[in-house]
């Protein structure tokens, strides 16, 4: 892999005339990735999902170079048609279309190919890989007091002939004071056996609201990693909802730094897994000042040999008095071979806080099935009704009605 990485990185550096600063940034990140490689189970964060092994067994050898000068066809992508939305279409890690047609032009600024990548935190080797290989800098700024009229949908897609390839995408978002963004990420997988690596940075200024809905529904053989880094100022709210289902492997990592008083973070998710799919949600909610709140609810329905992992961490610094932190996970295992791993972590250094966690897993209740069947429903219908009922309270946490309905439709929940 090392040889391939070096060849592809050299090729990438030649493609564009990077400034010295950019070049240095990419080289530093590249070196760091070379040193560390893909995360494996020796790292605590990755002990339930050894990405190195997962890539080896599902993809084999990867290549890392993408030709970002090439134009990709975007008309092949099936768009959401029952929800009016702004769009950002991404193919193989390249932004092919930016369309904010529903919005006031001067309220949104999109910076492409200018500015610099400033975040230098050492998060993990995948962020290094991303910084080394992702296309040019892209930053979306929502101006003060502006709420987007329609949601922004980011379509993540690949070319048909893209295979055994790693593609990287990084987008930075800034929500200025009192701004509001509803963001939907949706995967449109046109090809198999790729490793997609997404890295988002969010800066939430005072009183801004971010709602990010990540939807991975259709079955595909790709391996994906997504990292949300959210920094929140006073009174800001971040709501993340993850529907984790279709990909062979998907790990969503959500890092929220609650830096301003009365800021709050909500992370809710559904694992709806079949076959041998293996998915993970890893959250780090960092309560750094007084009076902040976090809430997490994750529910899993696991068929066949699927595996779900939820590692939820609540960190409360010594200054963060009056923190309110909560997390809960419930799983229904529908097969003897399915697996649910939960690792709740509370790390608390303040003494006046309210934090709790809980986790449960079990099988579908046969008595409930019998009850429903005695009312004329067949086994399949009874099972579906129970599962939908089980998932409903996570879906009810979605505060946006339009998007809630979209997700209900995707899951086949009728009312």
């Amino acid at each position, binding site marked *: 892999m090392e040889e391939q990485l070096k060849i592809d990185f050299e090729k990438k550096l030649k493609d564009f005339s990077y400034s010295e600063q950019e070049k240095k940034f990419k080289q530093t990140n590249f070196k760091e990735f070379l040193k560390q490689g893909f995360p494996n189970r020796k790292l605590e964060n990755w002990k339930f999902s050894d990405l190195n092994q997962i890539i080896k067994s599902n993809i084999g050898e990867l290549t890392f170079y993408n030709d970002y000068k090439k134009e990709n066809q975007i008309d092949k992508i099936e768009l959401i048609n029952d929800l009016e939305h702004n769009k950002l279409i991404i193919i193989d890690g390249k932004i092919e279309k930016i369309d904010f047609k529903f919005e006031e032009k001067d309220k949104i600024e999109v910076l492409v190919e200018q500015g610099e990548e400033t975040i230098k935190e050492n998060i993990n080797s995948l962020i290094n890989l991303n910084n080394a290989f992702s296309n040019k800098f892209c930053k979306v700024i929502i101006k003060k007091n502006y709420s987007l009229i329609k949601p922004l949908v980011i379509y993540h897609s690949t070319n048909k002939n893209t295979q055994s390839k790693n593609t990287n995408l990084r987008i930075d978002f800034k929500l200025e004071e009192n701004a509001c963004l509803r963001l939907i990420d949706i995967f449109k997988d046109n090809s198999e056996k790729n490793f997609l690596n997404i890295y988002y940075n969010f800066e939430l200024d005072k009183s801004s609201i971010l709602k990010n809905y990540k939807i991975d529904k259709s079955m595909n053989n790709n391996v994906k990693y997504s990292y949300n880094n959210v920094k929140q100022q006073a009174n800001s709210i971040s709501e993340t909802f993850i529907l984790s289902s279709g990909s062979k492997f998907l790990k969503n990592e959500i890092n929220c730094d609650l830096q301003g008083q009365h800021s709050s973070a909500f992370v809710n998710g559904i694992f709806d897994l079949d076959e041998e799919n293996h998915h993970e949600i890893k959250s780090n909610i960092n309560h750094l000042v007084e009076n902040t709140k976090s809430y997490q609810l994750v529910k899993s329905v696991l068929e066949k040999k699927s595996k779900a992992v939820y590692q939820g961490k609540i960190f409360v610094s010594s200054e963060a008095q009056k923190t309110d932190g909560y997390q809960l996970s419930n799983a229904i295992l529908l097969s003897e071979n399915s697996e649910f791993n939960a690792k709740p972590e509370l790390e608390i250094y303040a003494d006046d806080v309210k934090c709790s966690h809980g986790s449960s897993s079990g099988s579908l*209740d046969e008595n409930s099935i*019998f009850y429903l069947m*005695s009312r*004329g429903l067949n086994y399949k219908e009874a099972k579906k009704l129970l599962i939908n009922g*089980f998932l409903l309270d996570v879906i009810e946490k979605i505060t946006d009605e339009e998007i809630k309905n979209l997700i209900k439709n995707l899951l086949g929940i009728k009312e």
Partner: protein
Amino acid sequence: MLKINNLSAKIDNKSILQDFKLEINPGEVHAIMGPNGSGKSTLSNILSGKKGYDVTGEVLFENNDLFSLETEERAHKGIFLAFQYPLEIPGVNTNVFLKTSLNAIKKARGEKELDAIQFLKLVKEKAKELKFDEEKLGRQLNVGFSGGEKKKNEILQMSILNPKLSILDETDSGLDIDALKTVADGVNALRKKNNSFLIITHYQRLLEYIKPDFVHVLMNGKIIKSGGPELALELEKKGYENIN
């Protein structure tokens, strides 16, 4: 309508029903009374298709072999069990459940399914008859319902599904006197020439409100005595130990 011949049932090799015999004709109301552990609930479970029992013998429902039918097929054919302990089903709206159930049965019978408006009209009417709080219909099925509300909900389901044979498994237990009357009114409203009932109970209290045609005493998995409504009164006086 229902013929039970020499039904024996075991669970984990423990014999519960032995050579049980019973025949119910259209329009009849039968009460089965018996002490705890006499096999009353096993009988209702077996009739509605619950798994986990080893059975021998024969049960015919309108000349269909009941054991060849799945639980939901028995419901389609018109058998209804009012549960002793109705289950709480979180996340499932009571109205949605009722409509799904009614339409599943209608569909299986080749009848036209009800649309939302027709259904709501029906359910409102029935809820009113049973003094069932309409607001509860918009809530999750049985979640947070009191014991009495759960039992009333069973009777509401029964009156909406309009079954040919209703089995009431200790529907009276845990009911106060007002709820008991409402439940009895619900049952009596359904009493028609063709609808039959099998009422399973400990006490004769319910039978003051629902007059049975026949009363059977179940002890140790067998019917030891059958008679008219007067048998229930005799039982109440003498107790199960001294009947015979």
